[in-house]
Each structure stands twice: as C-alpha cells, then as structure tokens.
C-alpha cells in the first residue's frame, strides 16, 4: 500500500525536475514563454524557440535518458555480479569509450567520429573482456569477468594517459580532459536521434527480464537448478547494459557515480527485488542527473563538468549510506 505514495512522490519530483530544467538557464525563458512555445505560438523572440527546442529540450531528454540508462545498467551489474560496489563501467566500457574518444580528438576528427569511436571502443573492450573470460580456467565466471574487466580497464586507462602525453597540451589535451569529465553541454537533437534508440534497445531486455535479474544474484548452481540458463541470461544482460552505457558515454562522456549510488538509494525505498528496484532506479537516476546537470549549467558563469558534480554529490552520499546502513 505504501507503494502508491512513493510512486506519486517520485513522479512529482520527476515532473518538477523537468519543469525546472526547462525553465532554468542563462537565457531568460520564463514559464509563460514555455507554455507559449509548447502550444505552438511563435514567441516574441525567435531565439527562444532555438533555446527551448534545440538546446534545453534535447539536453533535458539526454539527462533523463542517460540518468535512467546508467542507473539501470548499474542496478543490473550490481545484481548479476552479486556485488553492491559495482558500477556500469566494471567491464571496461567507459575506459574503452574514453580511449576511442581520445584517439579521435588526438586525430582532430569531428564530433561524429569522436562519438562513433567512443561507442565502438566501449563495445569492443567489453567484448574483449567476455572473450578472455571464456578462456579462463577459473571456476567462478562472475569473479573472472570482474577481474578481467578491471585489468582491461586499467590497460585502457594507461592508453588514455599515453594519448594525453602525446596530445598537444594547448589544444587537444584540454578537449580530451573535458571529454573524460563528461558533460551534456554539447548535446544536440541529432545525438539523441542516434543514442536514444540504442539506449532504449538496451533498456528493453533489462526491463522485461528484470524479475529474472533477481535469480542471477543467487549462486550460479542455485539459479541453474531453478531452470535458469545462467550463461545466456548473463550474456543478455551484459550486452544490454553495455549498449546502454556505451550510448550514454558516447554522447555525454564519462559520468561516474550515478550507476553506483542510485541503486543503493533505491534499495532503501523498494528493497532488493529488481522488479521494483529497476524502475525506481531508472526514475531516481533520471532525476539525479537532471538536477545535477541543471546545477552544472546554472551555478557558475561557465559550465561545470558534470562528472565532477556527480562525484561531489555522489561520493559523500555514498559514504553516508555506508555509515548509516548495516547492509547495502
């Protein structure tokens, strides 16, 4: 029975977050302008239409999509790796994407290539991790995946550092740094047109199979004895979560902490059952990123990198949770 008010509160928060994100910003755009724009009336200042439709709206949608996507991927990975300290980039997707993007920036390529190489880099690294895991002789496939992911991720991190050393310190290096810190300031409608279908494609299996996600947090032989094809289910989840994360990273850079912290917050609200946890995580992740991004573009005279803000909000919150709760 307590479900109804919680859902209502989250829905209300989401709605007010969206209104806040659409009305807050450096360009003066009031609520009356917004209602005018939404009803299709031409605004008194033609630039308002650009600000609203080309800048704020895509940015808000991207924050919602990426926040929900990263939180869903984090929830999935924490569940299937039976470890509450896992984040969506545990299998190296962010490191791979970072490497791809850095190479593209080093070569002076356009945004299309930066995003493309980031996306492909993320997917390739996760594929590599899975292939290597298949050839390991360890008994515990989950632990193998995590360890190999950490190793390959570190390797990519080293490659990124190498690229940073090779990059021109006055031109390419700052761009690489900004990219690695993440941010939504460059989002365009075109980015969304490509990233949104990919993200939704990855979210769909996670959503449909979310109850079965519970079974993967049991030891393999138990899940298997309950009739679950553990390997197949795990592959489906890895592919889906990777698709979601890689799409997010490709258009927004590396945004940490959302995928790690949000599932924890939501377990307090809904409990561990992914049937309720996954939708809640997606909603809270969307709200969190929306609010953080709105802060990132309003508190200072220039943009603050989103990755820095999510860490500044996420890390203390996480520590608080660790101290307060006996069990994550």
């Amino acid at each position, binding site marked *: 029975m307590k479900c109804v008010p919680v859902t209502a509160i989250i829905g209300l928060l989401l709605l007010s977050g969206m209104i806040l994100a659409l009305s807050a910003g450096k360009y003066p755009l009031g609520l009356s302008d917004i209602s005018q724009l939404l009803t299709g009336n031409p605004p008194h200042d033609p630039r308002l239409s650009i600000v609203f439709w080309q800048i704020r709206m895509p940015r808000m949608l991207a924050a919602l999509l990426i926040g929900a996507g990263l939180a869903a991927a984090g929830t999935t990975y924490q569940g299937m790796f039976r470890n509450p300290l896992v984040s969506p980039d545990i299998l190296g997707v962010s490191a791979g994407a970072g490497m791809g993007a850095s190479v593209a920036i080093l070569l002076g390529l356009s945004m299309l290539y930066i995003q493309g190489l980031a996306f492909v880099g993320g997917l390739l690294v996760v594929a590599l991790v899975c292939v290597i895991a298949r050839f390991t002789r360890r008994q515990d496939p989950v632990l193998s995946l995590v360890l190999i992911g950490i190793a390959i991720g570190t390797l990519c991190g080293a490659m990124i550092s190498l690229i940073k050393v090779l990059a021109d310190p006055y031109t390419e290096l700052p761009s690489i740094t900004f990219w690695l810190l993440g941010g939504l300031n460059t989002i365009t409608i075109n980015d969304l047109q490509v990233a949104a279908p990919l993200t939704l494609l990855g979210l769909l299996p996670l959503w449909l199979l979310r109850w079965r996600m*519970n079974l993967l947090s049991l030891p393999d032989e138990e899940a298997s004895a309950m009739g679950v094809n553990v390997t197949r289910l795990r592959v489906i989840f890895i592919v889906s979560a990777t698709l979601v994360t890689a799409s997010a990273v490709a258009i927004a850079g590396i945004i940490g902490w959302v995928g790690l912290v949000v599932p924890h917050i939501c377990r307090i609200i809904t409990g561990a059952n992914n049937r309720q946890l996954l939708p809640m995580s997606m909603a809270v992740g969307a709200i969190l990123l929306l609010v953080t991004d709105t802060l990132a573009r309003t508190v200072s005279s220039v943009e603050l990198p989103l990755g820095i803000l999510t860490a500044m909000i996420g890390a203390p919150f996480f520590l608080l949770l660790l101290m307060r709760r006996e069990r994550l």
Partner: protein
Amino acid sequence: MTLVQFANTAIGYPQHPVLQQISFNIEAGEVCCLLGANGCGKTTLIRSLLGRLTLQGGNILLQRRPIRDWRAHELAKWMAYVPQAHDSPFAFSVLDMVLMGRSIHLKTFSSPSAKDRQQALELLENMGIAHLATRQYPSLSGGERQLVLITRALIQQPKLLVMDEPAASLDFGRQITLLKKIRQLKSEGMTLLMSTHHPLHARAIADRVVLLSPLGAQQGSAAAMLTGQKLAALYDVQEADIRHHLGIEI
C-alpha cells in the same frame, strides 16, 4: 521405478578426480541419504547430479536419460536443489526469495502473480515460518534461512528434492521438525536425496543410505549401512567410540 541412476560414475575435475566408479540408484518415492567424511565428495556429487560439473566418466541418468542431455529448464521441473544456508549480498524479502523458485513456471518476461504469492504464503505457513514472510532474508538466522531455502525448492514443485546438509545449521528442535517435514514430503510422493553428517538423521528417515569414501560408494538399507563397523571405517574412528558417542546401539 528407478528415478536416478549413477552408473559407474567418476566425478571431480580433470586434474583432480574426487570419486570414481560410483554406482547406486534412487527409486522414486524414497529418501536417500548420503554420508561421508568431510571432503569425501558429497557436494561434488550433488553438483554433478545438478548438471553443474562435467562427469569424468560413466553416467548419471535421470529417468534413464543422461543428465548432460537435460536442459536447465527441463531439469528444474524434475529436480529442485536446497543449498546450504548462505548469505545474500542483497536484502531480498523472504517472500521474494521463495518466489524465485517459481521461475520455471513463469513465462520468460513475466513475474510472479498474486496466485504465486498466495501459494508461497501457504507453503511458508506449512513450513511454520509464515511470520517471516516480510523479513529480509539476510537478517534471518542460519536455521530460518535453511527453512526458507527449502520452501523455495518446494514451490518449484519438483519430483526429486536434492538437499545439501539441510540440518547443518538447525537447532535441535528445528532438526526434528525438518525430519518430520521430510517424512511428510515422502508420504506425499516426493523423492529426496540429502547429504548429512548425522547418522541418526539417516536412520530416522532414510530408505536407502549411500556411504561415500575414497574407495567408492556403498549403498544399502539404513539398517545394513549404519552399522558401527561401517561408520567407524567411513569416519576413520574406533567402532567403540561410535557406539559410545551415539549412546545407542547401532
């Protein structure tokens, strides 16, 4: 009717064989107890029966069909597994934990219905732990967890229940309840295979006892297997100590 047949089975790992030439049968509707010293291969044998370990030789047949030919979802309709009570990294509620056992009866994309929920509550009631339904699984005692895991296996509606030392973490009273429950399940037509460290438990419920030692498997009725002499050999202690310790004539 023979439900499970171990035919000259060798179990273990490629570089590390655990047991070889095991042969015994489990008949439908009987209770079979596995006894053996620590590390003798009881858990390995159970893992092999569950199809989680590749056999190193011979065969395990379920319904005269080799276990390796069974797919996980087919196998789960016949056989449910009760692991030793363990911790869970996530705080699932007891009801959620039990409902996971319904997975084989649900469509791929669906989750448990109100009917499944009702069935789970009835089973919890039946196991005497209905009051735990909303508690978080990790907050339970070892014994309570074990009962939850048994309930979870039962809701799977198997014909064969495989239990790995189900009494290990139960207090004396709960052990007696468990044995009663096993008898009840048997009377309802369930076949059970359980490993145990308690010869007395085996004597109380087993129709068939399998003794596992590095020399292989011996099977027979409880009376034939649970003799002081055989137990002394199995656990590598003096026969007199066995008699003295159990305090009753075996």
